[in-house]
């Protein structure tokens, strides 16, 4: 049983799913939702894949380029949507996803509808270094001044605007950070799955990440991570689930949002784990004194 999970491809996929879930969690921590993360991950994948395979540029350069383009695209489209209304930012990212898929299909250099083969450079340890760096960054972000600002905007847009926060600036920033992570996930995806085609980045890919974040819990980043791990393992365990994957996702989204809107891992859970470790630490300290 265990050997199924230790294949490099599965480890890559798990890491990519975690990155993707966290990249969607960051805008949602600021009260913003994105329907277009599939476009962002696709942009990262296509640009970096084209740079390494077609132009022969080094991988680190392609990785940075992939992150930058996804980040910029996320910021541009959300900024235009935010000119009118929060919900419009989500619709604009949907536009981004649709335009990106059409563009991927239309570019002949990357194989058009058929897709193209990318040199598989990425090893699981590289993906996991990326995941750990991003998780560390997100952890620090949540407990920083910027993270608290995001939370204030999520709780009440009007109050935080009244207190003098430039809410649009912070929302666009959240989309930029999330976009960079989605781009990184795309870079890893392209260089480990090694075959990318436009249809892989269709709108419903975003829904996968939505399910991770909503089922896991949208209050802290641990919810996104937990949801990604849980569902990736679940789908690998239950073989018949592959055909009914979308069905399971649909049921899970409806049930969780209707009956446990916070998701499985709430902030209270995370704090109680923290308190548990504090207690153990205190116990150990008393014993050693």
């Amino acid at each position: 049983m265990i050997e199924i999970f230790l294949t490099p491809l599965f480890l890559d996929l798990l890491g990519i799913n975690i990155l993707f879930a966290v990249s969607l969690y960051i805008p949602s921590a600021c009260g913003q939702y994105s329907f277009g993360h599939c476009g962002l991950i696709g942009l990262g994948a296509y640009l970096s894949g084209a740079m390494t395979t077609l132009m022969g540029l080094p991988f680190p350069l392609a990785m940075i380029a992939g992150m930058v383009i996804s980040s910029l695209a996320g910021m541009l489209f959300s900024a235009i949507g935010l000119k009118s209304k929060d919900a419009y930012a989500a619709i604009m990212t949907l536009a981004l996803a649709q335009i990106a898929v059409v563009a991927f299909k239309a570019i002949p250099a990357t194989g058009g509808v058929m897709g193209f083969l990318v040199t598989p450079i990425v090893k699981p340890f590289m993906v996991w270094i990326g995941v750990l760096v991003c998780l560390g960054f997100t952890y620090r972000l949540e407990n920083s001044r910027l993270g608290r600002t995001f939370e204030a905007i999520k709780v009440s847009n009007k109050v935080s605007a009244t207190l003098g926060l430039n809410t649009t600036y912070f929302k666009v920033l959240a989309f930029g950070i999330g976009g960079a992570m989605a781009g990184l996930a795309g870079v890893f995806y392209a260089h480990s799955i090694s075959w990318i085609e436009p249809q892989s980045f269709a709108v419903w890919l975003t829904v996968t990440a939505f399910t991770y974040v909503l089922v896991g819990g949208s209050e802290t980043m641990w919810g996104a991570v937990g949801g990604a791990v849980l569902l990736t393992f679940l789908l690998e365990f239950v073989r018949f689930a592959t055909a009914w994957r979308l069905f399971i996702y649909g049921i899970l989204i409806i049930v969780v949002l209707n009956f446990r809107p916070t998701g499985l891992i709430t902030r209270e859970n995370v704090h109680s784990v923290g308190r548990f470790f504090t207690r153990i630490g205190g116990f150990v300290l008393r014993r050693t004194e």
Partner: protein
Amino acid sequence: MISQVVNGLMLGSLYALITLGYALVLGILGIFNMAHAEIFMGGAVLGWLMITKWHLSLAFVVPAVMIGGVALGVITEFFCVRRSVRAGSFFVPAATTIGFGLILISLVQNIAGTNPLPISVPFQFTQVQLGNTSFPLVSIIVFFTSLIVLAVLAYYLKGTSLGLATRAVGENPEVSQLLGLNATRIVQITFGISGLIGTLSGLVFGIMAGAAHPHLGEVAGLKGICLVVIGGMGSIPGAVIAAFIGGMAEVMTAIYWEAKYVDGVLWLIMFAILLFRPLGLMGKAEELERLQ
């Protein structure tokens, strides 16, 4: 050239039909019904099931598909909207209806397969001679269907007390409830009507394209959201104008640019519109307040 303009108008009338379903729920009630794209797909698949598999007559299929649409709309409302709309964020009903859409896609994929499902009606290739150009009969039927639906919907919203109640609930659910309206029931009725329009447009699209497909909603159905935004939130005339502009733009793109860019054109137009006119073509600022 004339025939291309007419083609644009025909496609625009189809888009108007798709958009009206969205405009009711998104524009009037301010609820994102992302499952509408899949209800649209469901209409086409129901058409395939009844016309191609069961060989039923069209006189029976059209009302049956419409009833199926009402059922789908009411189910969407009951399972995805009734509870979650109280959360106060536009995103919660949007996510649950996405979930319902996934269930529909998955059902169709697993039962009917992922291949295109052919729909053929006797008058599929009939051409009608008008002046010195000829048009497919199907497009003309689409055009008149959407005109009829538009007229009935306009009368319903402006002329009947139920339509007035619908607009009142969209304006302010709490106050309308205080004044004695059953807001839940009115939302349910609106979803039913929207589902009816959704499956009807799906059936019409399926007959026009000659095939249904599990991923129809993702490409064609989602354009409805885009057109509502272009037209302006809450404005039915705006949505219809946007649909005709969109239909013309797609036909012109296919001729003067390249056919492979067609699916992106509407979204590019939306990008440009929101860049220069954040409220859409005919939107008003107070209509936007309905969205959380």
